[in-house]
């Protein structure tokens, strides 16, 4: 049976979600999305220029992709809600919105409380809400109760390429939260994306590590492959590891 992610009312085969900022051109971004066979892309509404004939980023998103507009730039729940409503006006075909509420321009860490408020409001308005958050089990459950389609804990700060520094917390979330857990932000290499999938995350979202790679098109494909491998490993069931060699029966061998 095909392994599909059931999320936001859709069934998704490719568990690599891709962010669209920081590319050196829209054409290159499109090639990277095509190379990864991406199905979910997130676009900052602040960058969408619907009135432009040549500069509208949405025109460069491959047709098979679901566009998840995000609220980049929102500093509180009220701004996130306003941006989400504007997003729906621009892209009525999709009710997916990624909530980003960031009041910290130094580390770009999210404000979980304001994110929760926006999630409550927008879920009630019929959006499929994808909240970006600092990993926290209680808050993730509250997001779920508020109607979130998933939770998106960060691996490390946006753009840092430092990998999954929040591993312990994300692993607990993946185990305990009943909606998909998608690691968003900070993943610097395909192996780190693979690691997230092995932990049991439902998907990962990557932007910077692809966009500023020497060859973004190949890097997108590499991430896609790694995510697929990690997912397959998770489903196969990883053998538990150990730091030492294991004698087969150290305590009961005498009974033989």
């Amino acid at each position: 049976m095909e392994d599909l992610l059931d999320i936001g009312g859709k069934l998704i085969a490719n568990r690599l979600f891709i962010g669209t900022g920081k590319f050196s051109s829209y054409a290159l971004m499109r090639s990277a999305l095509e190379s990864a066979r991406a199905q979910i892309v997130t676009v900052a509404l602040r960058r969408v220029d619907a009135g432009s004939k040549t500069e509208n980023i949405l025109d460069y998103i491959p047709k098979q992709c679901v566009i998840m507009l995000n609220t980049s730039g929102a500093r509180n729940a009220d701004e996130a809600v306003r941006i989400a409503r504007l997003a729906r006006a621009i892209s009525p075909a999709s009710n997916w919105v990624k909530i980003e509420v960031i009041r910290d321009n130094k580390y770009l860490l999210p404000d979980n409380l304001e994110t929760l408020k926006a999630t409550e409001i927008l879920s009630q308005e019929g959006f499929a809400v994808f909240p970006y958050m600092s990993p926290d089990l209680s808050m993730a459950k509250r997001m779920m109760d508020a109607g979130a389609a998933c939770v998106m804990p960060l691996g490390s700060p946006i753009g840092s390429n430092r990998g999954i520094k929040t591993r312990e917390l994300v692993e607990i979330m993946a185990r305990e939260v009943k909606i998909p857990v998608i690691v968003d932000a900070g993943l610097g290499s395909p192996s780190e994306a693979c690691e997230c999938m092995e932990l049991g995350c439902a998907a990962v979202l990557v932007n910077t590590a692809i966009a500023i790679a020497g060859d973004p098109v190949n890097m997108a494909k590499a991430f896609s492959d790694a995510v697929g491998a990690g997912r397959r490993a998770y489903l196969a069931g990883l053998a538990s590891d150990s730091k030492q060699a294991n004698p087969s029966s150290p305590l009961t061998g005498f009974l033989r």
Partner: protein
Amino acid sequence: MSYYQAYLKYKDFPFAKTFSNISAQEVMAASRADKTAAEDLLALLAPAAEDCLEALAQKAHDLTKKYFGKSIQLYTPMYLSNYCDNQCAYCGFNANNQIIRKQLTLKEVEAEAAQISSTGLGHILILSGESREKTPLTYIKDCIKVLKRHFSSISVEIYPLNADEYAQIVQAGVDGLTLYQETYDEKVYESVHKAGPKKDYLFRLGAPERAASGGIRSVNLGALLGLNDWRKEIFFLGLHAQYLQDNFCDVEIGASIPRLRPHLGKFEPVNDVSDRNLAQIIIALRIFLPRLGISLSTREDSRLRENLLPLGITRMSAGSSTKVGGHTVIYDGDSNLPQFEISDTRDVEQIKAMLAAKGYQPVLKDWMQLN
């Protein structure tokens, strides 16, 4: 507490002696610091940094790519008025200068806005000479109403306001403030600002904090290079940006590094800033504050702008005019003089093509009106 208290700690600091004693090894150590401190900025600005500029440039380039990606935001200035109550020694709009004074009517603002936005630019920076009497806040707000129909982001570069007035213009639709302190040295400030309300050093210095408290989204600082020892000025500019980042963490902080350009008047720079110095300034600011926006205006020529780009620049102006109504309105030939001369006269399409050729995405829209 305001930045002035932080400034006072270094006001009488022995800069010359400190800068000359810093070694290239100390500069490289500063560039590797995980969390940069004021001492690291001093090192990055020292003459010894010139000996390792290429290594520092690589670091600055990598940081810029990581935090801002391969994109450059474009904007253009729009001059509303050249009436001014001040007598700044270095400025063409000096109240004593015998130039034709002009202020755009709202109809002319509309025409300018339509022309500029037809180039695709979504970010506008409106400027005026500093005259509260001729360019009152009511006029500025009327202009904002017109501009909101054309632009996704509006920044102002006007006389400093009080806290309530900043909150008012934010409510009206302004999201960015540009305000140069010109010089952080109080004595030099006093000497180059001969008369007018701009003589109030502290009111100007506190303006970015008042705007940030009033809900502005971005603040762009600047020191006019040439008025004083540039190393000192950039040190205080960097500390100012850091102070704002630390205290107003939801506001995007940026900096401009304008060099004094030819203008009407006899003022000559007292401290020359070479191209090499300018490169060092960008590199030092980038390493000191990796998320700082850094703007490069058309004051600099096209070749230099292109070469400085990868060192840390995040915003560039394009298709600029420093004349009131410079995009659509012509007054009596050339008698409406510019505030200063520009060097890079390329239009928006040419700048976009240049950026694309250099592997950068030109960003024409990066915000939206929420009200």
